[in-house]
């Protein structure tokens, strides 16, 4: 038996009586398409959308070739109209354009218009997946935007990287930058970093870099993925806590002053760089890490210089990447582990598809007998993530059991999709 009062309260529209600031906050979390359609809900709601300060536009490329061109035109028009019709005096704190597709690129005239609109409305966060929009150059006002704090910029494409050559760079609030497919020539990266006095997180993906030396005191997190180093250089970041260095191409990079790095992920393909570049010296600079992820190709490189390998005193967590299992890796592993006296957790990613195992059963038995025990007295846990259960996996587990006979280590096997 529900009383009338309660029944009445249940049917009340309380959401419309929330203050404007809260409703626009709620709408800021929706995609732009849904935001504009709220104009039809009621009179109160029709007045909200122009004041929403965070806009997120998603372009999804149609599977059908026939509708694609029309869809793209509609999208470009939609973004432009939205910006034109919203309240011009309201700041645009977040402007995001996401592109999901493989064939179509936004027209540079539109991109320029959108970018200029965003930059003149005090943006804090800019997320632009421009995907191969060729012919578009970042406007000067981007490099001197006082309000920007967080930027994701995907400029050109793998085969056409956008050149970054601004005159003046002053981004006083920029803390986080992720940039994809850019070309930083002639020390422009150094200039760029110099113009960002509070930069904490930098991620460069698929970029071409020509520089001698980068130095950044404020940087806490650095990711360099699939970048091409045109000349030898050094990176110095004395307050860096987290480093990712994935598959660099070209010249070598030296890491300096990395004593505060606690977490490092390193993946180097010896076919893309001269292995001499990334041996003992490179790993020495990471010797204070607590968490280390290494692809075993690096491991191979390190093998040649194991006697010179530094001691990883703080290393508690070691993960060996997907290319882990090649013949003889266990010998290197146990030698390497001698340099990790305080290791607590070892994780191995055993992707059967990438296995380079080729050996006979006798070889396997032989190897096991010779196996050295792991010297890490503190080793508590070994995680093995595997893609398929087979004799190679069994061999690995047998090996691990033998190597940890006198330790209290737990071995945990988990099946995953690589």
């Amino acid at each position, binding site marked *: 038996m529900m009383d009338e009062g309660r029944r009445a*309260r249940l*049917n*009340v*529209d*309380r*959401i*419309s009586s*929330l*203050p404007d*600031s*809260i409703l626009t*906050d*709620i*709408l800021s*979390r*929706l995609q732009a*398409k*849904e935001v*504009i*359609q*709220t*104009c*039809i*809900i*009621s*009179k109160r*709601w*029709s007045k909200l959308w122009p004041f929403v300060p965070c806009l997120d536009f998603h372009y999804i490329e149609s599977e059908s070739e026939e509708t694609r061109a029309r869809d793209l035109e*509609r999208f470009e*028009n*939609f973004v432009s*109209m*939205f910006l034109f*019709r919203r309240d011009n005096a309201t700041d645009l704190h977040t402007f995001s354009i996401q592109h999901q597709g493989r064939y179509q690129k936004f027209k540079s005239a539109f991109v320029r218009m959108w970018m200029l609109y965003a930059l003149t409305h005090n943006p804090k966060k800019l997320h632009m997946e421009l995907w191969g929009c060729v012919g578009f150059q970042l406007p000067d006002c981007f490099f001197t935007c006082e309000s920007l704090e967080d930027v994701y910029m995907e400029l050109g494409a793998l085969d056409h990287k956008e050149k970054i050559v601004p005159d003046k760079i002053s981004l006083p609030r920029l803390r986080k930058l992720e940039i994809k497919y850019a070309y930083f020539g002639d020390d422009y990266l150094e200039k760029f970093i110099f113009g960002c006095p509070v930069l904490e997180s930098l991620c460069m993906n698929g970029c071409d870099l020509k520089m001698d030396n980068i130095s950044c005191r404020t940087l806490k997190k650095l990711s360099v993925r699939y970048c091409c180093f045109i000349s030898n250089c050094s990176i110095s970041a004395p307050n860096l806590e987290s480093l990712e260095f994935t598959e660099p191409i070209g010249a070598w990079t030296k890491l300096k002053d990395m004593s505060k790095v606690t977490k490092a992920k390193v993946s180097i393909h010896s076919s893309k760089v001269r292995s001499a570049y990334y041996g003992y010296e490179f790993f020495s600079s990471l010797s204070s890490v607590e968490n280390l992820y290494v692809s075993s190709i690096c491991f191979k490189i390190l093998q040649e210089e194991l006697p010179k390998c530094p001691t990883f005193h703080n290393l508690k967590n070691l993960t060996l990447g997907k290319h882990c299992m090649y013949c003889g890796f266990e010998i290197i592993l146990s030698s390497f582990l001698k340099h990790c006296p305080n290791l607590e957790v070892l994780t191995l990613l055993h992707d059967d598809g990438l296995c380079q195992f080729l050996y006979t059963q006798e070889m396997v038995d032989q190897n096991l007998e010779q196996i050295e025990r792991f010297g890490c007295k503190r080793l508590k846990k070994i995680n093995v993530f595997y893609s398929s259960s087979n004799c190679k996996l069994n061999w690995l587990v047998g090996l691990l059991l033998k190597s940890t006979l006198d330790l209290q280590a737990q071995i945990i096997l988990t099946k995953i999709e690589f």
Partner: protein
Amino acid sequence: MAPGKNITLKSSDGEEFAIEETVAMESQTIRHMIEDDCAESSIPVPNVTAKILSKVIEYCKKHVEFAATKPTDEELKSWDTEFIKVDLNTLYDLILAANYLNVKGLLDLTCETVANMIKGKNPEEIRKRFNIKNDFTPEEEADIRRENQWAFE
């Protein structure tokens, strides 16, 4: 752990809640009062009932704890998700309380929850869910649709 100073909050319906200063400071509103020395023995929180205030305090307490224990993102999210499983009326009350008391994390959580209830719904479905009355005449509605044709293509 040495006991910190205690602050007393008084709900709109007269119930008093004694909490640690660190927990109270999760509310920027109360923080300013404390820092500006305007805080008397008991801080009144008008428009927030005891039921809602105790929920807000629960949130603040837990998040102060989290700052010390530093849980994983999953653990944090999991707790927040359970915490916010409340009926719609309570959700509105929490939004208003978080807004008045300026507890950023709670305001984000509650607004995100409402946003998730709106996502994926067309205007008519939104009206139904939140009991919003369509006060447009058919002509007015047609006008708006025409004016914002680009939005409905």
